[in-house]
């Protein structure tokens, strides 16, 4: 009995530690991962030999904010993949909490919307926890330097979720443009409003 109590207390403690883990910010070194793409293959950032970096976007099928940004994420990939910064979208939502975000639904969404970027399933939610993602959309721009992945920007895509043409601060585009021209990113962090990531019920 005592043993079980100890175990459950230890378990609680570990859960608290995981929850307390703060999010990556500019300057941090990001971890690579291996996640299943909608096509079935496993994808790691280390596989992209030609990439200079990545636009990692915590994403899903169901959030109204994500839907508002859907075309914009596709545009970012179209504009920057060839320049060395492909978009990598990751869905970390628990399918029991949000059935519309299951792997099968991701496959359907990617097909319907003709996603040209990788759309990965973070079923264990480990990547979202490690990166400290809280919302969808939540974007992390990474650059490769000396075999490591450095975080350059964390936050929102731009400053108008409702209307792309009314956005006058394009955080992600500005940051990638700065990196491509060898300059420092001027805004390295913003708050990303959106739907909370649907964590597994413990």
């Amino acid at each position: 009995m005592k043993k079980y109590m100890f175990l459950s207390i230890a378990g609680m403690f570990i859960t608290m530690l995981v929850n307390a883990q703060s999010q990556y910010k500019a300057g941090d070194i990001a971890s690579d991962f291996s996640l299943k793409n909608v096509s079935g293959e496993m994808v790691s950032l280390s596989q992209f030999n030609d990439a200079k970096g990545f636009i990692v976007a915590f994403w899903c099928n169901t959030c109204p904010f994500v839907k508002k940004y859907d075309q914009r994420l596709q545009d970012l990939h179209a504009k920057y993949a060839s320049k060395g910064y492909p978009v990598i979208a990751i869905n970390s939502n628990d399918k029991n909490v949000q059935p519309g975000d299951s792997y099968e639904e991701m496959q359907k969404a990617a097909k319907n919307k003709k996603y040209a970027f990788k759309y990965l399933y973070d079923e264990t939610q480990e990547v979202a926890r490690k990166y400290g993602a809280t919302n969808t959309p939540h974007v992390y721009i990474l650059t490769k330097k000396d075999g490591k992945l450095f975080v350059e920007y964390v936050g929102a895509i731009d400053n108008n979720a409702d209307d792309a043409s009314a956005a006058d601060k394009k955080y992600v585009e500005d940051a990638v443009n700065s990196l491509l021209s060898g300059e420092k990113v001027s805004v390295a962090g913003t708050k990303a409003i959106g739907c909370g990531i649907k964590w597994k019920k413990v």
Partner: protein
Amino acid sequence: MRIILAVLLSLTLGLVTLQAQKIEKIGVPELEKILSSPDNVLHVVNFWATWCAPCVTELPYFEKLAKEYKSGDVKFVLVSLDFPSQIDSKLIPFLKKNKITLDVKVMTDLDYNSWIEKVDANWQGNIPSTLFFNNARGVKYFHPSEVTEKELKGIINKYIVVY
């Protein structure tokens, strides 16, 4: 005849408008005004949206507790982050359906990073989040996640001042 019809029509329209939930659109200056209210009242400002499931779950607790306290002791405001383009199509029907009578304001400034930190320096922009304050007494507590009815009542009872 035409004039009578026109009068009847405008009267009918007027009545419909009167019945509808009064919704105020606000921007950063109006938000700042709410946040700096000098009156000796516990202000409970809840940030939510119709598309946010946990927000929708907790709304009835606010509605219920608002009836349990005197308006001179606690003042509730629901600040909606629904898109301004969806006020008529989504927000108003939702409020009617769920019989929400509290004061609802819609934040129309979508440049979130220009105002999130005015609410609380550590807020990440996640909703639901609720701010409790009484500026006359220098009381401020920010709750950046959902609440149960019991939690909400507990927080209000902790910060309320009843004479």
